[in-house]
């Protein structure tokens, strides 16, 4: 203890507080955030976060685009799990237009969304490892994420900004190559994942670094609007997939893992368990994948097959109307929430019957919970603050919209 106070005296420039500018571009913050820290030696006295460095006015853009053209905007919110955003948006429009989605399409969506959650959690947890000094697990887990991206590519042709699915269902059925890649992944991934887990879960250094780092209690977390794994790490079992099941989540058997301390270690552990649960859901969805159509029969919203567009008048008319954004949309107000990679991702849509939304508000989970960051790191070491930030899974694209 004496040694520590000796050094803190040295660092604080004759007892004065030092101002440290952490960011906007800093290798340890994994995104463009600025935090102006008041430091007493290595201890953080206060923090002032500045955000908005990649603000792209998505809510304004959305008021000037037809509904189907808003999907690519949602890609760029939480770009670690784009399919969840895409499908969440499609379901919002479907709720407004009262479109029933066939069971097969719902299960396909569940598979895509759970793959996305898996990829999102893998990135976050392996980066926590990196920030504690364990790079190895990260390099292996990124190879696994690459395989998930290969699967995305099979389904929609893109890897990061997926634009997957359409209003009314999926764009195309899963190909045999996708099924092969998925089965291969489901067979080999768990062993590799458990190996990664064994590197960190009971690792003395990792535990010492993460246990007690950046804690928040359940009551504070709720007051700060926490959702997702960060909230569950505090012991509150709120999960949109269970509270308001969408896309047939009620058909699947999975558990909601919760922590107790709300610290970095618990956040890590909750995500680790959620990865296992996502695998369970994907396995169940694959085994029980219903026969049938991969999209609803809604010619007003869902593009006809391209062959028909060239040969049939009816298909040509629908194709033209959809591409021009002239789809019949009821007037109304809709809120739809999905469980995103880092919390409750909500779409609040007001339609006046026009070709674009009158108002579209995104409830972005990390924008809301990142407010708690100064409180969580106050009094902790700078290195703990870095860890706390990476364990909160703050994604700049979603934060700044």
């Amino acid at each position: 203890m004496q040694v520590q106070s000796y050094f803190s005296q040295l660092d604080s420039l004759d007892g004065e507080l030092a101002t440290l500018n952490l960011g906007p571009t800093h290798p340890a913050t994994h995104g463009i955030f600025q935090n102006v820290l008041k430091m007493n030696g290595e201890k953080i006295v206060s923090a002032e976060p500045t955000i908005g460095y990649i603000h792209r006015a998505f809510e304004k853009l959305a008021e000037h685009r037809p509904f189907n053209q808003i999907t690519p905007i949602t890609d760029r919110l939480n770009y670690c799990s784009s399919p969840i955003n895409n499908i969440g948006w499609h379901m919002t429009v479907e709720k407004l237009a009262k479109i029933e989605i066939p069971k097969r399409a719902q299960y396909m969506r569940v598979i895509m969304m759970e793959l996305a959650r898996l990829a999102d959690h893998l990135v976050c947890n392996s980066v926590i490892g990196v920030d504690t000094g364990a790079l190895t697990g990260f390099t292996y887990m990124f190879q696994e994420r690459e395989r998930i991206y290969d699967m995305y590519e099979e389904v929609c042709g893109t890897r990061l900004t997926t634009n997957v699915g359409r209003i009314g269902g999926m764009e195309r059925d899963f190909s045999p190559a996708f099924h092969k890649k998925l089965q291969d992944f489901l067979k080999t991934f768990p062993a590799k994942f458990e190996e990664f887990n064994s590197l960190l879960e009971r690792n003395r250094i990792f535990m010492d670094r993460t246990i007690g780092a950046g804690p928040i209690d359940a009551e504070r977390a709720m007051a700060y609007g926490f959702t997702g794994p960060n909230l569950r790490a505090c012991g509150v079992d709120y999960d949109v997939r269970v509270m308001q099941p969408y896309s047939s989540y009620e058909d699947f058997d999975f558990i909601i893992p919760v922590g107790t301390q709300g610290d970095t270690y618990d956040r890590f552990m909750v995500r680790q368990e959620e990865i296992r649960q996502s695998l369970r859901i994907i396995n169940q969805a694959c085994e029980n994948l219903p026969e049938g159509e991969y999209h609803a029969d809604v010619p007003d919203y869902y593009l006809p097959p391209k062959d028909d567009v060239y040969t049939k008048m009816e298909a040509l008319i629908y194709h033209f109307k959809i591409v021009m954004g002239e789809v019949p949309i009821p007037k109304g107000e809709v809120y739809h929430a999905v469980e995103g990679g880092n919390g409750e991702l909500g779409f609040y849509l007001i339609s006046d019957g026009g070709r674009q939304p009158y108002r579209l508000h995104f409830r972005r989970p990390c924008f809301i919970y990142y407010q708690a960051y100064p409180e969580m790191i106050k009094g902790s070491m700078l290195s703990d603050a870095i860890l706390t930030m990476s364990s909160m899974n703050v994604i700049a694209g979603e934060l700044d919209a």
Partner: protein
Amino acid sequence: MTHELVRARIDQQHPGLLTAHEIAYDGMLTVETTRDRILELLDFLRSDDELQFHFLTTLCGIHDPENTGRELTVMYQLHNWQKNIRIRVKVFIPVADPHIPSATALWPAANWMERETYDFYGILFDGHPNLTRILNVEDLDVFPLRKEYKLEDGTRTDKDDRFFGRDGNTGRSFD
């Protein structure tokens, strides 16, 4: 707990607090009050033993220039996790006098949401500890999500609505 019970409870404990109510298109109870009594309503919804809308899901602004005297809206959405019921609260305020009390004392989560709403719509949340722009630059002199600000060149016409069967009856166009 049903919507009817929620509304009855509010009316019983605080008569006259709700100025309007409806079940929205998506089935969510939507209530309206005035800015003078918004904190009273939010506090009651949050702390009442029966209602327990303890969680502020989201908060945002809406602008409707044609609704004279009620151009701006602040929309609060609360959630009771135990009974799994949501409620939407709306307050309409004139654009000429865009003041409303801040809810930051009730939920710290409201802090950035209100800053964002100020940044986008210029709604002034009285009592907010730090009401500055959050996503846009500080020296921006407009409130970009208000409808009068066009996304691109306002004189440009990409589509003539008359040719698409939209003569002003089916949706207002702002671009």
